[in-house]
């Protein structure tokens, strides 16, 4: 197709579909795992990408809330897409109700879905080791990233949470490489934040190594990781979250400021949905 501004990025081949819910379960006191039947998206999904998912079935155009929600992809296996989410507002509340009320695979509760969207995580080149920090909604994209890309001992994933019961169950976050847990109260893994655990790792096992850093989750965590990367001149990538309406770059709701003019628009604004959600920290103003 000649008309394809999207051809220069990873969002080139998204699809829209209606996906049946095949599985829904709590995987910690906080997280739910949602499995959807959606082969076209599952086949295309790359780590760090997301979908725009309706919170309720269409209901003849009367569904509420009106807008879909951006949700990160946890995994894609065959025709099935896995999402990890927690209830953070009205939309995810309705989604939880929808999913709990759904009979497995029922066509009555199919949800409108668009994806996969955005530029995801790819391995940072020319480093000795990779360390990723995930918390909150940032757990899913990093687990997916590790499952697809991590090979061997040079890969470290640190998941942070307030307490042990918030950490998703082991099966949900099983990844190749090293998995470390950090909790604020020390009820699982090391006591402290994911950023503290990163610092400890860099002072310990990875001392003297050049490390590529990835972060997805709460902004203070990502900023803490970026700060450390800056101090040590390590490359770092973060996955940003913003309120979105469309997910494909047209509504311009989710913009953040970049460091230079956008190659296409000449503006400093970047759309998190289309130019991101994963950015090199050097692309972002104020990081």
């Amino acid at each position, binding site marked *: *197709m*000649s*008309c*394809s*501004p*999207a051809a220069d990025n990873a969002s*080139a*081949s*998204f*699809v*829209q579909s209606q996906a049946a819910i095949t599985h829904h379960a709590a995987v910690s006191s906080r997280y739910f795992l949602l499995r959807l039947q959606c082969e076209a998206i599952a086949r295309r999904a790359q780590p760090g990408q997301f979908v725009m998912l*309706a919170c309720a079935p*269409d209901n*003849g*155009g009367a569904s*509420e*809330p*009106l*807008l*879909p929600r951006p949700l990160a992809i946890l995994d894609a296996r065959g025709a099935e897409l896995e999402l990890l989410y927690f209830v953070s507002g009205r*939309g995810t509340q309705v989604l939880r109700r929808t999913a709990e009320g759904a009979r497995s695979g029922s066509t009555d509760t199919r949800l*409108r879905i*668009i994806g996969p969207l955005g530029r995801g995580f790819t391995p940072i080149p020319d480093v000795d080791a990779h360390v990723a920090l995930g918390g909150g909604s940032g757990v899913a994209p990093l687990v997916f990233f590790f499952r697809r890309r991590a090979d061997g001992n040079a890969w470290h994933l640190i998941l942070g949470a307030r307490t042990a019961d918030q950490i998703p169950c082991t099966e949900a976050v099983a990844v190749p490489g090293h998995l470390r847990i950090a909790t604020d109260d020390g009820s699982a893994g090391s006591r402290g934040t994911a950023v503290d655990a990163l610092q400890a790792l860099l002072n310990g096992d990875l001392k003297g190594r050049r490390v590529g850093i990835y972060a997805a989750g709460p902004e203070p965590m990502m900023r803490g990781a970026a700060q450390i990367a800056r101090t040590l001149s390590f490359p770092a990538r973060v996955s940003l979250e*913003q*309120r979105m*309406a*469309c*997910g*494909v*770059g*047209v*509504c*311009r*709701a*989710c*913009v*953040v400021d970049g460091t230079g003019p956008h190659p*296409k*628009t*000449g*503006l*400093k*604004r970047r759309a998190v949905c*289309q130019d991101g959600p994963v950015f090199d920290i050097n692309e972002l103003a104020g990081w």
Partner: protein
Amino acid sequence: MPDLSVTLGPLALKTPVLTASGTFGYGCEYSPIVDLARLGAVITKSLSVHPREGNASPRISETPAGMLNAIGLENCGLESFVAQRLPELAQLPTHVLVNVVGNSVEEYATICRRLEKEEAVDGFEINISCPNVKYGCRFATEPADCRGLVRALRPLTKKLLMVKLSPNVTDIAVIARAAVEGGADALSLINTLLGMAVDVNTRRPRLGYVTGGLSGPAIRPVAVRCVHQVAQACPGTPIVGIGGIRTVYDALEFFIAGASAVQVGTTNYLDPDFLNRLPGELDGWLAQEKLSSIKELVGTLRRD
């Protein structure tokens, strides 16, 4: 098969289904999932002479059956538009209308003059009604200013000159008449309703710009009323109805109230496939009603 073609001024459209400015980018973004060939036209995001970065975040807030937005007309500006976007727009299998904004008559004129010679551009939608910028409203609320603007632009183009009206006025019919007197080929309405939402926990406005434009199904009754009033006030001028169209029945309301065509806006965000379905669903409804053309439906509101 019923005839869906409609005419807006000098422009013949395959179908009466258009995309509302600001909700469809430059047409290409949705091309992986929307069949543009079935659309009457794509209307671009608002274009200004100079690039605009737009407003501070947050730029949207969801509301019951709708959303508030205060994007602030973020766009790349005329020069970049011509260099970067026009070549892509020329490839689209449908008509392209450029939505034009300006702070002065001269700024609107600069864009129309520059794009008049571009074959990829089939017409202009003059946006006099964006609520999210300073001075955004003078041309939308003062009949004399509106008439003067359209009168200044009319000699600059032989292409479709359509004026997009604001509902944030005391009497939309007065402004509509002014635009027609100025020489508008067609009128599109409505733009968003000025609104506001407050986060009670922080006591802050939910939008960075404080106020924003309300769109979505919530505004549809207001839009249908406006189309009805303008159709009464400006017989013979084609109207393009806009406002919360989410189903084929919503679109039909607009045609019956007096619109010759419709624009789909906020629904693109949640259900872009609606644009694929709507032309066929209109076809189906017309056939069922034994109507041979969408034109037979326009303005058929019964008052008996």
